[in-house]
């Protein structure tokens, strides 16, 4: 691949029209036929050189397949240069696999020719004119005036529900209310039980509110708590107001 791709003034014995080759095997067969050499006895060295020259003029998009073949040809060329063992029994011609592929490909070409010939003959025998149903057309673009469009947009905007940014969940615990209630009760009574404080609370949230309020009041020293036995009734007693003392 050292030869620059030039077409003028070179001793190229052939003009290669690369578009007309359907692959590296095709090109190789063409070269072999050009040189009128025996396919079973390919002069790999010269064919490899010509092959490289030919693919120099090739567009890169297709080159990979050709380059692979070029590499193979060079490998075979080198293998042929290596000394053979005296005992030629075990020697296998490095070209054998290539020859097999070339002949196989030649068959493919022949069948392809037959297919082309046959289909071209048959293409002249026309069936009834028949057209495939056109694929379903996309709906026509809607023709509307600007005014109609604006009205429609306005209607759409109006119909939109207010955007919900954040839903506030009502706080289930009402510690503040419970605190007030307990303080209110303690204004009138010297002491009361936890059950009194809970009163007729109906929900778990209410019970918890009272409980937290009681604990909080005890923490800040407004009330004192006493329980005489485990799981017994809790007595709530008002602590003397120290600020008042």
């Amino acid at each position, binding site marked *: 691949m050292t030869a620059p791709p030039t077409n003028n003034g070179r001793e190229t014995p052939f003009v290669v029209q690369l578009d007309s080759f*359907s*692959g*590296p*095997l*095709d090109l190789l067969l063409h070269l072999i036929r050009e040189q009128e050499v*025996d396919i*079973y*006895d390919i*002069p*790999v*060295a010269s064919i490899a050189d010509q092959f490289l020259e030919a693919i120099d003029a090739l567009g890169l998009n*297709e080159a*990979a*397949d050709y380059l692979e*073949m070029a590499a193979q040809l060079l490998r075979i060329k080198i293998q*042929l240069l290596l000394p053979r063992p005296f005992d030629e029994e075990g020697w296998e*011609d490095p*070209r*054998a696999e290539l*020859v*097999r*592929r070339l*002949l*196989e*490909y*030649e*068959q*493919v*070409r*022949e*069948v*392809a*020719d*037959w*297919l*082309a010939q*046959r*289909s*071209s*003959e*048959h*293409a*002249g*025998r*026309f*069936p*009834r*004119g*028949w057209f495939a149903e056109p694929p379903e057309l996309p709906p026509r673009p809607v023709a509307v005036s600007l005014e109609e469009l604006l009205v429609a947009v306005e209607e759409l905007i109006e119909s939109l529900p207010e955007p919900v940014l954040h839903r506030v969940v009502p706080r289930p615990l009402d510690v503040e209310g419970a605190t007030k209630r307990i303080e209110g009760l303690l204004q009138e009574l010297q002491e009361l039980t936890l059950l009194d404080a809970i009163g007729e609370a109906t929900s778990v949230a209410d019970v918890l509110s009272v409980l937290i309020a009681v604990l909080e009041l005890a923490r800040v020293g407004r009330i004192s708590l006493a329980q005489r036995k485990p799981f017994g009734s809790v007595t709530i007693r008002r602590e003397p107001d120290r600020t008042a003392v």
Partner: protein
Amino acid sequence: MNQIVQLFEAAFFAAAHPLSLEDLGRLAPDSSAEEHAAALEELRRHYEEHRHGVELVEVGDGFQLLTRRDLAETITEAQIVHRPRKLSRAALETLAVVAYRQPVSRADIEEIRGVSVEGVLRSLLDREMIAVVGRAEGLGRPLLYGTTPQLLELLGIRSLDELPRLEELSVALRPPTETAELGET
């Protein structure tokens, strides 16, 4: 022309693709297969004997009305109809490999043709000349391709048996024993 022959002719006229004997049988379910075959033969002979411009041709596993071959050129030249687009060389070679080696994987086709065949395979699949017929065992479980009845229609043949046999090709692969006798450079 009896009723069945008439029905068959109408069906051939209306159909886009070759009609099989089974298709034709549905037109006249009350009559026997022999009667169907006889009607078909009568219709075929009718076109032939009266030198009609069309003839009844066996294509794939069915029959089709086609214009006579000897009129092809005149019809095409007058631009009454357009010949279908010809298949590319790459497409023909790929079809050849698929036809003889099916079911065959993409890698096998590429090995034989020496080029990447991805694009060609896709276009042949689109044109329904080939179809995926299965998956190979082994690494990657590659898709396997085979030919379709559309290929028979394209070629106007009854079955793949009409393809040239490999022994009939001018290039026959020499048996492996002979490759050992290759000459020296």
